[in-house]
């Protein structure tokens, strides 16, 4: 009795596919300077203000202002500082100042993250 054919020969179409894949292949093209040529044709990289630099600049400016204040204005007592801060915060929270702060915050955010989409595309 003949054993069943466990490995039947492939269907004609499969054989044609296999044959074409085997004999119709292309060797990879060497780069030969092509990628360098593409990179030279790219538009220059966007000048992005580094966030780290922005934070460091803010820190330095804050330190300079604080040191200048200490040098010329003396060291305020904590109680004075507290009352002045409370008073200034109260003034800032009036509606025109709050509006101005909001606009400033949005402007800073737009300057730093302006490339991002605000709202999802409809």
């Amino acid at each position: 009795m003949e054993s069943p054919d466990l490995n039947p020969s492939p269907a004609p179409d499969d054989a044609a596919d296999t044959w074409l894949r085997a004999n119709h292949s292309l060797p990879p093209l060497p780069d030969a300077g092509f990628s360098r040529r593409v990179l030279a044709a790219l538009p220059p990289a966007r000048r992005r203000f580094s966030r780290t630099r922005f934070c460091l600049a803010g820190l330095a400016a804050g330190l300079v202002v604080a040191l200048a204040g200490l040098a010329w204005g003396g060291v305020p007592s904590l109680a004075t500082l507290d009352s002045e801060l409370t008073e200034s915060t109260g003034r800032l929270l009036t509606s025109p100042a709050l509006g101005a702060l909001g606009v400033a915050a949005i402007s800073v955010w737009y300057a730093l993250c302006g490339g991002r989409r605000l709202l999802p595309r409809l």
Partner: protein
Amino acid sequence: MTDSALIARVLVSDDHAAFGELVRRHQSAVRHFLRHLARGDAALADDLAQETFVQAYRGLARFRGGSTFPTWLLGIAHNHWRNARRRQRTVPVEPEHLAALEPAPSSAPLSDLKHDLAGALRTLAEEEQTALHLHYQQGLSHPEIADVLQWPLGTVKTHLNRGKEKLRPLLASWNPQT
């Protein structure tokens, strides 16, 4: 590093080196495809390939990952080819360019086979040749070919089957199993 990671680096920090790596990875497929479309005109194909990559760079934010990155690139390349053909109307077909495309022969019978196959392919309709190129030489699936060429899936299958059918006598002479 995966293509997705490189794309993210280009998008986030405009990293030209990361884009250069993407170009090195996919230049062969894009240039082969354009050489196929330009009938072996390597200079024209490389110019179009360069335009393809520059446009891909500019439009990378539009790549949504619905297809693979190389498939997306081949779609851009195909659009560039169509625009170039519209501009030029005719692209020179030089037989020596076609011959230059053939892989280096490793043995006499293989060389004959490749020669026969190249000759048979030239007798096919342009759409059939392109479908066969993308399927067998670039390894794209039917839906991917439809995506690249903007053809309906049924049209892709029809062109592939017709092309294969026309090649069948040649296949039969080289491989009796077919």
